[in-house]
């Protein structure tokens, strides 16, 4: 890239408007947490000189390839892109896929042009709309699906300009009217009729999945349509701000919505894999071990017997034994789940992992993880089978720790590292912090991981600092990023 290019990054023939919305776009990406450097920004402009602007896909991927360098950020990118560049399409010669005429023709055609030129998406009766929707879904016709989504939003969402409600509200209203669950059943029934019941269960299942995928596409289409209209109403910046969601690694464990929990579960697998590789490498490449005489002599041969290339043995530091003691009461259950999942995913880095869970009673759950590679199933067993309730099912750290000390305290030794997970909200029970003092004397390390923000510690019934004084460290672990950082220094 030469200097002239970087000085004049504007694609020839483009208006200053594109540059402006690109600047806003990049700003929004940064606000959403995606790191975009200055060079990357310049690269994006350079890239736009080469792609035909009327090709919307090429435009999108040009921006993606230059600005987004991690797959975890893709979703955030896509949302921001939709907001900034889909409505303004026509203005900037991007093909405008909301383009009405073609679709209206399609609809008119499908209705058998009964109403002549008067038929338009707005003029449909609910029955006609439902019928159209059903046919579009059955045929898997994308253009039609888009048209129907458009019509449905116009008809059911009841969008009013300037009304300060989020897109989810309109989405809910539209979906409620369409009643997609009933549509799915109808589709399945129709498919069954077509083959006259001559289908195996597998075929049934595959058909169902296919239809579900189509319905999902419809849902996305409706969402996109609502977003487009919101952008038209309020401007890209405001809409982008309302759509801003934390990246998976920044989602707060304690306040994750169901959707976010799914995103978390998806994000944790590659994260732990990376962590395991990194730890294994660290172990092997850490410090050098003692001189490996044999290997040194062998490698001296190319140098005529001069040991110019000394070889060392790999160090084999002893692996720690991990004991996890986790609070699994409602408020912190998600946090315990992810921490256990992460610890078990890298369990090869430890000589042994034992896990205990408690609410007000405590139970060992190590066996649930043994012999299964499916951590999700093990967690499920913990939630249904573990004996963790002693009196009333409200967290009682004091009693749980005391019971732990009585039953398993003898088995702790100087190779053990103890992890305590919980928010230390003890419901005003006795703290019994002496247990931790005793444990700390016996084990190598003891850490407290708290999913609450540090500023909430020791407010209300939280007594975390009473326990933390006996620990080697108390860490705030609100999201995957913090958890990963902690687990890494453990291995």
């Amino acid at each position: 890239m030469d200097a002239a290019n970087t000085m004049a990054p504007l694609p020839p023939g483009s208006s200053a408007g594109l540059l402006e919305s690109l600047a806003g776009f990049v700003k929004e990406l940064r606000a959403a947490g995606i790191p975009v450097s200055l060079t990357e920004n310049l690269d994006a402009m350079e890239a736009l000189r080469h792609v035909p602007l009327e090709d919307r896909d090429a435009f999108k991927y040009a921006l993606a390839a230059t600005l987004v360098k991690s797959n975890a950020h893709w979703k955030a990118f896509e949302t921001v892109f939709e907001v900034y560049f889909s409505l303004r399409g026509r203005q900037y010669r991007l093909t405008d896929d909301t383009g009405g005429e073609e679709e209206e023709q399609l609809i008119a055609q499908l209705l058998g042009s009964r109403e002549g030129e008067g038929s338009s998406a707005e003029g449909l009766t609910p029955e006609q709309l439902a019928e159209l929707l059903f046919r579009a879904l059955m045929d898997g016709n994308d253009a039609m699906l888009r048209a129907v989504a458009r019509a449905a939003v116009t008809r059911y969402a009841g969008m009013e300009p300037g009304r300060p409600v989020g897109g989810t509200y309109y989405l809910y209203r539209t979906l409620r009217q369409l009643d997609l669950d009933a549509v799915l059943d109808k589709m399945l029934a129709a498919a069954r009729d077509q083959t006259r019941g001559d289908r195996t269960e597998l075929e049934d299942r595959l058909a169902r999945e296919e239809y579900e995928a189509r319905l999902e596409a419809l849902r996305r289409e409706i969402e996109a349509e609502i977003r487009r209209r919101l952008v038209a109403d309020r401007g890209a910046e405001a809409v982008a701000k309302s759509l801003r969601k934390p990246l998976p690694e920044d989602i707060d464990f304690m306040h994750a919505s169901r959707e976010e929990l799914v995103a978390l579960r998806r994000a944790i697998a590659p994260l732990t894999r990376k962590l395991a590789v990194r730890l294994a490498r660290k172990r092997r490449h850490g410090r050098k071990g003692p001189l490996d005489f044999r290997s040194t002599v062998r490698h001296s041969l190319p140098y005529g017997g001069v040991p110019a290339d000394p070889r060392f043995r790999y160090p084999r530091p002893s692996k720690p034994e991990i004991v996890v003691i986790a609070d699994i009461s409602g408020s912190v259950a998600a946090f315990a789940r992810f921490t256990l999942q992460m610890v078990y995913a890298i369990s090869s880095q430890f000589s042994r992992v034992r896990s205990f869970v408690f609410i007000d009673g405590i139970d060992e759950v190590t066996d649930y993880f043994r012999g299964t590679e499916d951590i999700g199933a093990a967690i499920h067993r913990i939630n249904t089978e573990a004996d963790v309730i002693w009196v009333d099912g409200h967290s009682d750290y004091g009693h749980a720790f005391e019971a732990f000390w009585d039953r398993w305290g003898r088995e702790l030794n100087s190779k053990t590292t103890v992890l305590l997970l919980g928010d230390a909200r003890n419901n005003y029970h006795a703290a019994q912090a002496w247990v931790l003092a005793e444990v700390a004397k016996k084990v190598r390390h003891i850490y407290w991981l708290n999913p609450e923000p540090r500023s909430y510690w020791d407010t209300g019934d939280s007594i975390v600092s009473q326990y933390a004084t006996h620990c080697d460290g108390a860490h705030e672990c609100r999201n995957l990023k913090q958890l990963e950082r902690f687990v890494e220094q453990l291995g």
Partner: protein
Amino acid sequence: MSDAPPARFESPAAVREGLRTVSYLADEGIAGVVFLAERLGKPVLVEGPAGTGKTQLAKSVAELTGARLIRLQCYEGLDESKALYEWNYKKQLLRIQAQRVAEGSGGSWEDIEEDIFSEPFLLTRPLLEAIRAEDPVVLLVDEVDRVEVETEALLLEILSDYQVSIPELGTVSATQIPLVFLTSNSTRELSEALKRRCLFLHIDYPDIEREREIVLTRVPGISEALADQVVRIVRSVRSLELKKAPSVSETLDWARTLLILGIESVDAQTATATLHILLKYQSDIDKAAKDLAGSVAPSR
């Protein structure tokens, strides 16, 4: 296609069409990024799950442009002498010996030094070879996430300036800019510096239409109905929470197996019996078998 240095692509669509002729079915994203890489002269970092055609992409682009493919397979412990260049010290030693024998005391040391640190004594390794190539080349740096962070730095000079500095010879610059593909299975985070220099392309499992097409092109003789069934079952299996979801190459293997076994329509039983081709972990196989046998999809 192979006349004049790298045939310029007209548009992303042309790239897509071109790749199709060498039976690589690209989607808009892949075609768009390849097009840009060629226009901007920037390397492409291709990331994604194993077996989705990352390496194949580089090979196909090489085939399409009629360029020579130079491949650097990365592994832990890869160093300069394996990736860039190395002095052929054995040959150098022989040269010194020969000089001594021929002239008794020999010429001045400067002459010899000048001589033994010159081209004939240089062993070029893939990176240098790609830079020095006269003919069009495609450089494939495979599984770049396997090298250590320090070794990654080796690549930076080449990727941004297309040149290599050899202390004894000076700087070797590329005569033409090669297309560079780096692939990564993302077993670790690559450094910011490397990512910044590259265009980023994530190749995920293809959507169902594309995968069907891939099966049809790559498995000759398969019927459309069977291909359709295969990809739909694979999608169903992928939606389970597995240790290792089936990749495209495993889909192809499975389709080939079914073809060889002479199966025209897959039912739950055949699917279960041949699952071990699709999945590589016993726990995954058990899970999928159970799921397919039960066959009543859990409603959402």
